[in-house]
């Protein structure tokens, strides 16, 4: 692709930013992750994500329906690991319970919606957010709107192929990645304190 130099960075990028994939940004291969539009190894991405989270003024996790509901085996363990990660980071959780255009409006203090995630980010002054458990289509929808209208740094912990719309995205991520991220957060925080 001609435009492969495109960087996926915090915005606000403008009125209608392009989809990163159409600018030549490719999803990572299995075992890899993606950072600001470039493929990196999984551990580099995990470490960078941990650092972003602990350096954030107001990091917030956006758990989606796939992790908010204990709907199939394995979810409860991931939910617990996510909770422990949030505690280690000192991050707040604001859920994305569904994807509907909500009537009459959402309360941005307590929820986030893929159709206008910027409202929640502005309202809560979030500088780093983490997506998890959101269906891929809606995650990309939201991540792009965030890039367009806010300066929030976005991290996606994806159980499928990952998100080029996020500034850092893991792929095929599950319990083990959440636990590793928590270890790194604790390690990096400890390092800072010394």
């Amino acid at each position: 692709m001609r435009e492969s130099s495109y960087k996926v960075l915090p915005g606000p990028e403008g009125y209608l930013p392009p989809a990163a994939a159409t600018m030549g940004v490719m999803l990572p291969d299995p075992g890899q992750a993606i950072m600001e539009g470039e493929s990196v190894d999984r551990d580099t991405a995990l470490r960078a994500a941990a650092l972003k989270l602990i350096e954030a003024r107001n990091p917030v996790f956006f758990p989606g329906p796939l992790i908010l509901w204990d709907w199939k085996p394995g979810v409860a363990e991931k939910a617990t690991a996510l909770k422990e990660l949030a505690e280690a980071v000192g991050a707040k959780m604001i859920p994305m319970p569904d994807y509907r255009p909500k009537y009459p409006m959402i309360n941005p203090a307590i929820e986030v919606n893929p159709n206008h995630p910027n409202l929640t980010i502005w309202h809560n002054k979030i500088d780093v957010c983490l997506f998890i458990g959101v269906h891929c289509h809606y995650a990309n929808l939201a991540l792009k709107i965030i890039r367009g209208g806010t300066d929030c740094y976005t991290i996606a912990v994806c159980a499928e192929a990952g998100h080029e719309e996020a500034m850092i995205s893991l792929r095929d991520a599950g319990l083990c990645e959440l636990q590793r991220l928590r270890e790194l957060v604790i390690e990096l925080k400890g390092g800072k304190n010394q």
Partner: protein
Amino acid sequence: MKTGMLKISPGFEEIMPPEYRELVDNGPYGKDYGIGDLGSYKELLEEHPLCAGCGLALSLRLTLASLPMPEDTVIVGSTGCSALAFPQVALHNIHSLFGNQNAVASGLKRALKLRFPEKEKDVVVIAGDGATADIGLDMVMQSWLRREKITTIMLDNEAYANTGGQESGMSMQGAVLNMAPTGKKFPKLSLPEIAHTCGCAYVAAASPAKPKQLAKVVRRAILVAREIGPTYVQLYSPCPTNYKFNPKETVSLIKQREKDGLYQSKEYISQEAQAFLESIEVKK
């Protein structure tokens, strides 16, 4: 829905918005609730944007409260006023296009039967009169002719309401509406009779002015569709916005129409459906 599927993950109970916590603690899934229980449990329909006094909204609310098995019901809607309410309904539901609802439902029902051969999945079409009797009539009738095991419910407000009050095939003859500036020139379509002729095992016309009757026919229609074949329910649901009457008079207007002989409730039951209904209604 697998038993226990709708359970909040450990540690997330506090952050889940209240309308979901209520749905888990006091929702209708797996319960045998009916319209008599309205007000005592968390309904499927969340806040919606339909007009004050909307007959359709009332019919929809009563219909959703009458579903025999909401935890395994998938709804197919169509473009129109009701589609504005459906994003707020706590059931999987589909808006595809204007008029193709029965074709979508045919594919959906057969596919669900393939994936869940041992389990009942009720597919219910809920659409307006324009979608059902005009633009989608072909696909509505074809689904009946093919004997698809789906329930078709028409929310009949006698107009294209969402596009601004145009004449539909279900408007009364003489009604002055947009696109009928000198009054409609032909009578209201008799879809219940057509449904009966097309092989629907159960057909009914009802209205929200008699909620118990509405609940009974919706339930019967869904149970018959599950066991026997296609069913049709037509719900007269007047529109105060486009017919320009006082929103608080929706129900009294239905009653007046009935008194004047311009609306009547109906029920056609095939012999097979009759035998089936007797077997389950006696049991109960």
